[in-house]
């Protein structure tokens, strides 16, 4: 395996661990204000199914369930799936690193 690929794997693994920690330490209303970045809102002027998902996740990991429901009710469905995939990706990269 190339050394660059190895560094990339290490960076990914560290990112998987550090990003949730950063989001947990940051205030829950970090993404609440500011312009919408969704293309559906910018071009069509209406919210899509995923709009508010970031804010919903942010409030969910801070145990503010009502706020999470307010921003996007589908967050309750997406959060377990995301957590499952997060762990899966981490283990996958860990296996790759060990194989090398």
């Amino acid at each position, binding site marked *: 395996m190339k050394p660059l690929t190895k560094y990339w794997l290490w960076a990914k693994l560290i990112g998987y661990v550090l990003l949730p920690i950063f989001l947990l330490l940051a205030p829950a209303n970090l993404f*609440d204000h500011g312009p919408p970045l969704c293309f559906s809102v910018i*071009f*069509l*002027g209406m*919210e899509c199914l995923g709009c508010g998902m970031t804010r919903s996740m942010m409030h969910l990991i801070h145990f*503010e369930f*009502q*706020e999470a*429901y*307010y921003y996007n*009710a589908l967050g309750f469905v997406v959060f377990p799936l995301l957590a499952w995939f997060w762990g899966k990706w981490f283990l996958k990269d860990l296996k790759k690193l060990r194989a090398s």
Partner: protein
Amino acid sequence: MKKHISFVLFFLCFCLSANISGAHKYNPFPEKDIPSFQEGTGNITIDAFLNLTPKKIKEQTGRRLTWKETFVLKKAQKKIRKQLNNAQAYDSGKSQVAALFFAMFLGVIGAHRFYLGYTAAGVLQLLTFGGCGIWAIIDMVLIATGELQPKYGPYHETLD
């Protein structure tokens, strides 16, 4: 027989009383049943209402919203935002000259449709290169003749 007659009389009296007095006394919205979000805060502005979240309401009134109320709050804010957008769009001046220039130079990507507020048609033109150029030319003529108006309200400035 007497029993039957008395029953019929009673029934008639009941129906009449229900007709006369019931209509006036029945109030579909009794005042005590209306839930109030504004206890202690007084009236709030539209901006404040649009920025309300369940957390803010709990901080202000000390009352925790139910899930249903949270849902209703979101829907109400969405509706008010939409109405505000439409009201603003009615006042904003759209120029027929600008629309014509958009149709001339950027008609192939549907810029005039976006400018006039027909977003869905604009996206369609963007994807089909202005309806293979034909639709864009048709729109150019329609704008020049004043047939194609902005979606919300008339032109602010016209050609002549």
